[in-house]
């Protein structure tokens, strides 16, 4: 090559690819929030197809190469299976609100707690570490199966996987930071039929993970003030609630899109909601549910100690009600509110028997 340059000869260029580029002349403009995903939805690049035929992993809007191999093996290729209208917003918000459990939590505010309270905190932290594992791994698995033509939705799920990694680590840190330790796992996320792991359809998984599972945990995190004994715990619950709210929003907005664009699947989705409601208070994945390991530790945290268990339990019952009420609002927002009027939902009965 050096000799070639010295001789003054030049490399021949093909340059045929310059005639094969996608839509040209695009000028995405930054908005007040920088150059967001929403800002680059311009021209043909804005259009996510109803059915993706992209099996090779090319970026949406790039020109296909004839003969490219279908290496993607995507099982989610229909827009309604995955789409939501505000994915770009949720993703950008997730990036802006990333936080560090190492440095954003004021760990030095933790002081020794009475042993019963510390045990309750550690039991809850053990449980939350355990369930955050599933909330990270399952979206991760699904992301690998989605066409990149729906990258906005995929991006939100990847941000969720990161959020859940941080939740796992912050609750592990809490358990090991104040003279306690990890306690007993619950098996709440084992591979049961009807569990988050085993869903064979993305919307089915999302209804279990985002809408009911994370929805219930979100209510708990929002009540973090009632369970926190120092600024560190307060910060943990507040920051986790921010993250969790985005994950729940993903589920609600996806279901809303599904309801509007795939009405033939409404009955199927109502069946998922039937299952979700049936397990809402009995399922071990709800820390305020009936599993004594978690409900008793929450009661001790809420009451202020073992000897105030009764007071704590009554607060727990109030939180259960909030969980159900917030779930109802989400389902209505998702476009499935009819079930609360036509007698299909058991929520009314559940609200009446929430203490049992």
């Amino acid at each position, binding site marked *: *090559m050096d000799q070639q*340059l010295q001789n003054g*000869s030049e*490399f021949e*260029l093909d340059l045929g*690819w310059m005639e*094969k580029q*996608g839509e040209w002349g*695009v000028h995405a403009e930054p908005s007040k*929030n*920088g150059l967001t*995903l929403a800002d*680059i939805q311009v021209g043909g690049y804005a259009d996510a197809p109803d059915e993706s035929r992209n099996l090779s992993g*090319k*970026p949406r*809007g*790039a*020109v296909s190469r004839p003969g*490219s191999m279908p290496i993607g*093996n995507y099982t989610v290729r229909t827009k309604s299976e995955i789409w939501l209208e505000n994915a770009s917003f949720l993703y950008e918000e997730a990036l*802006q609100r990333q936080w560090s459990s190492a440095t954003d*939590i004021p*760990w030095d505010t933790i*002081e020794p707690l009475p042993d*019963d309270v510390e045990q309750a905190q550690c039991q809850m932290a053990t449980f939350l*570490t355990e369930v955050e*594992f599933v909330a990270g791994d399952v979206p*991760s*698995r699904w992301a*690998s199966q989605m066409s*990149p033509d729906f990258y906005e939705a*995929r*991006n939100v799920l*990847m941000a969720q996987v*990161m959020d859940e990694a941080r939740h796992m680590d912050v609750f*592990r*840190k809490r358990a*090991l*930071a104040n003279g306690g*330790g*990890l*306690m*007993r*796992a619950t098996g709440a*996320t*084992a*591979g049961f039929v009807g569990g988050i792991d085993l869903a064979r359809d993305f919307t089915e998984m999302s209804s279990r993970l985002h809408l009911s599972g994370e929805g219930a945990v979100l209510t708990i995190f929002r009540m973090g003030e009632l369970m926190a*004994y*120092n*600024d560190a715990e*307060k910060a943990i619950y507040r920051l986790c609630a921010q993250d969790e709210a985005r994950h729940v929003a993903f589920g609600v907005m996806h279901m809303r899109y599904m309801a509007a664009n795939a009405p033939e699947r409404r009955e199927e989705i109502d069946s998922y909601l039937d299952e979700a409601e049936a397990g809402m208070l009995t399922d071990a994945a709800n820390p305020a549910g009936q599993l*004594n390991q978690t409900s*008793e530790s929450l*009661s001790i945290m809420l009451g*202020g100690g073992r000897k105030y268990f009764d*007071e704590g339990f*009554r607060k727990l*019952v*109030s939180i259960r009600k909030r969980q159900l009420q917030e779930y109802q609002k989400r389902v209505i927002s998702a476009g499935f509110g009819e079930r609360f009027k036509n007698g299909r939902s058991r929520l009314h009965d559940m609200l009446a028997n929430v*203490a049992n």
Partner: protein
Amino acid sequence: MATAKDADRVRPALTLSKEEREVEVPEPRLNWMNQSREWGIRVKPGKKGLTLGSLNVGLYGEIPMNWPDRTRNPRGAIGVTGSPPVAIQIKDKVDLWAPCAADLYEEAIQRRWAPATDVDWTAIHPLPEDVERAICQVCTEICQYAIIDVEVITSWQHQMAYGYHEVKQFLATTSLDATRRHEAFRKRALVNGGGLGYEGPCQVSRLLLESRGGWTETVTGLTLVRGLFTQVMIRYLTRFAYNGVERKIYECVTQDLARLLTYGIEHIKYALGHAPDRQGSIFTTLAIGMRMFNRDLRDPVLREALAIIFGGGIPGARNEGMHVFYEMLDEYVQELLSACQYLRLPVTMEQLPRVLQKDQRHLPGD
């Protein structure tokens, strides 16, 4: 809010209804209390805060060579028996571990960035059309690499045992890094009067996605073939950046990729150190990877686009630009051989495809 001292006396108020105040309270069983394998742990934050690695004290720091538990029991907790297992396939430490994973995880979080706001997108100016087309083509191919990286990493992460949570958590950062890489390069392609280009060839991607036999083998391709090449390419793009927008993107992406490469190389080293019989499969995977890479390199598109960027346009691409392109390939080869030497993999220049051998390659125009 209550403090530790008055925790047993004062709790924040939650207004309860009359009905809630009259709820019959069951007798607690409390059979979960005093159930811990090790109690009395008090990890203090250090100068980098309370880090993941610092939690590895006492039995919580015991990371066994095998983790047969196929539930989600956190390491160090009392496990649950009798639960139906989840689909965990990677249960041996040798198959995924890198001692640096916890540190890389914390570093990834500290070095987080957002393409929307950390890049000054107003600092971009129109470029000659041939250069803009070349940049957009390179952006398209890097986007495609990033898309595949996400798919590769996420298809393995859930198969890894929870006893090795440091690795799983680090991998969560790498898939978000790759997501952000896709985002940043897509934004660059669409911000300056250009657009996306022609889909790249897929042989290395195919190797990565079809490497189902083992995570270590996948990491070999992801690190030594795709990752190292991308890292060197971005280093050269930084040298030839046309504006601050590109420079900032390259700088941030370089940091992200460096962590993935560090994990990958350190994992391979760990695997070879603890299972020397794996050397054969890693060597063979790398050899196959080089063949796939060679096939991708036969495609002129990326080569020409990079040469145009390096040469300042099409005329410059025909000589200086192409010269820089091959210099870049030579640098990749040097880094690859250095990594192999560090790993004690017996890879020599002569075993590489001819296009990667400076003295043997057939050049366009020969």
